[in-house]
């Protein structure tokens, strides 16, 4: 019987798991598969400093190049795993090989949601998920170029911000009636729309994309509302989908993401899963969550590694996220879904610094902090404690952040 741990996927969760497996005392062989040609790297900078050209590959790669070999990890990059054969405890790869496993970690991450309209395959229509995506977008980054961003979420708006700084003429098209509609209150959406407009980006909401026009290369985006937006370049950022297919085909339980428990175990005791591809039961929110974040990938990577090494390190944390656009640092604690009251601290209509506290029946469930580190740090603590807060104290800036809970 093999004692090898195989990790499918080579992203943030996988890199963390390798490190944590060794830290947890697992001394057996580890084998890592990734379908990209690169060793695990950080994705968040791809739509920020890496896209802007401020940092290169060496500063997004997660580990030193010799880390994997030094940690006794056999790596198979540019290799896609095509099947998990649970009966025989082996995995099959796209190049026809098979590898037996003792235990398995699925860390397959997520992929971009694709846009299925006429002209989707024209040259110049890009997504942003991988290093190679960024490299091909950068090739079009010339001052004066016209760019249309499809989707006003984090990725779309971060790309818009970087491009605007480079002198590119940017238009963002968003289907909903406001940007970031899925994740923040209208107060925050309208604030971001104002800032982007101040920075020269055109934001059009309530616009659906009907198709892309051009001979071989995209020349315009046509909207369902009859608009036509001439462009040299399109970046589509309309969300991601968890890579659950391998798990589902192997008969593992999938509930929005690959279903895991608080120890990152799937419905097969020999198989764990971690990161974007999973959904987990979160005790703080009393719900099964699928999270798209680095924090989740890192923490689940640690938990899965502990479980695989025979220890228990339950994962039950308040999620957090961040987004950098222009001089704005947005830090989000928690999930605001189902909030009953949004309380603002600071003035979103003027300046560039405020926070929104989301309460559900008086209990703090989330905070959006824009250039407000104190509120962010305090909120991390208060959300985990399910603190009941007085809205009047939140809104009163004469009361210090540390005293906000009374």
């Amino acid at each position, binding site marked *: 019987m093999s004692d090898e741990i195989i990790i499918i996927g080579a992203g943030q969760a996988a890199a963390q798991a390798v490190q944590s497996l060794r830290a947890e005392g697992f001394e057996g062989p580890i084998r890592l598969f990734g379908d990209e040609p690169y060793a695990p790297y950080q994705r968040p900078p791809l739509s920020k400093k890496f896209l802007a050209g401020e940092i290169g590959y060496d*500063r997004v790669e997660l580990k030193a190049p010799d880390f994997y070999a030094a940690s006794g990890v056999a790596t198979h990059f540019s290799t896609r795993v095509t099947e998990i054969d649970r009966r025989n405890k082996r995995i099959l790869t796209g190049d026809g090989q098979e590898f037996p496993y003792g235990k398995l970690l699925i860390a397959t991450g997520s992929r971009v949601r694709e846009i299925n309209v006429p002209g989707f395959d024209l040259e110049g229509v890009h997504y942003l998920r991988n290093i190679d995506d960024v490299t091909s977008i950068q090739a079009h980054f010339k001052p004066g170029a016209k760019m249309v961003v499809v989707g006003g979420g984090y990725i779309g708006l971060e790309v818009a911000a970087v491009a605007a700084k480079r002198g590119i003429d940017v238009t963002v098209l968003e289907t909903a009636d406001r940007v970031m509609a899925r994740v923040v209150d209208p107060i925050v959406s309208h604030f971001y729309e104002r800032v982007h407009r101040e920075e020269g980006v055109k934001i059009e909401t309530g616009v659906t994309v009907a198709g892309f026009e051009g001979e071989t290369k995209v020349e315009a985006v046509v909207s369902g509302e009859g608009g036509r937006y001439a462009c040299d370049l399109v970046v589509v950022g309309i969300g991601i989908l968890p890579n659950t297919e391998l798990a589902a085909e192997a008969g593992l339980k999938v509930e929005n993401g690959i279903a895991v428990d608080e120890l990152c175990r799937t419905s097969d005791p020999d198989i764990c899963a971690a990161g974007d591809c999973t959904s987990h039961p979160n005790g703080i929110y009393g719900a099964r969550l699928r999270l798209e974040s680095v924090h989740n990938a890192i923490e689940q990577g640690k938990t899965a590694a502990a479980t695989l090494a025979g220890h228990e390190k339950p994962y039950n944390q308040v999620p957090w996220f961040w987004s950098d656009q222009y001089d704005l640092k947005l830090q989000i604690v928690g999930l605001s879904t189902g909030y009953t009251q949004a309380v603002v601290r600071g003035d979103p209509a003027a300046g560039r610094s405020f926070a929104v506290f989301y309460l559900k029946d008086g209990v703090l469930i989330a905070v959006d902090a824009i250039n407000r580190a104190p509120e962010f*740090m305090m909120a991390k603590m208060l959300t985990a404690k399910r603190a009941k807060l007085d809205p009047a104290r939140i809104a009163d800036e004469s009361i210090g952040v540390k005293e906000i809970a009374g």
Partner: protein
Amino acid sequence: MAKITYIEHDGKEHTLDVADGTTLMEAAVKASVPGIDGDCGGACACATCMVFVPQEWWDKLPPKEDMEETMLEFAEYAEANSRLSCQIVAGPALDGMKVRMPESQH
């Protein structure tokens, strides 16, 4: 290049060569030094790369910017000599520096 020694809470030492222009957090994460998490990858957004800097090295560091200052003010294990290692850029002046890590970053 600067030789930096990272001392874990239990006293275990890790000495790394940190390339000029890169941060102490990056080097620690790449070398898997336990005790430096660096969840946000250096965006000064998470305060999970805190270190304690001894007095003799403190003055060689550029002062904290507002963001770092406030993140530290609210970080659970912070002390007066805390810095975020993602904001410390290596250079010859820091060669030989020793920093200590907190019990936990969370």
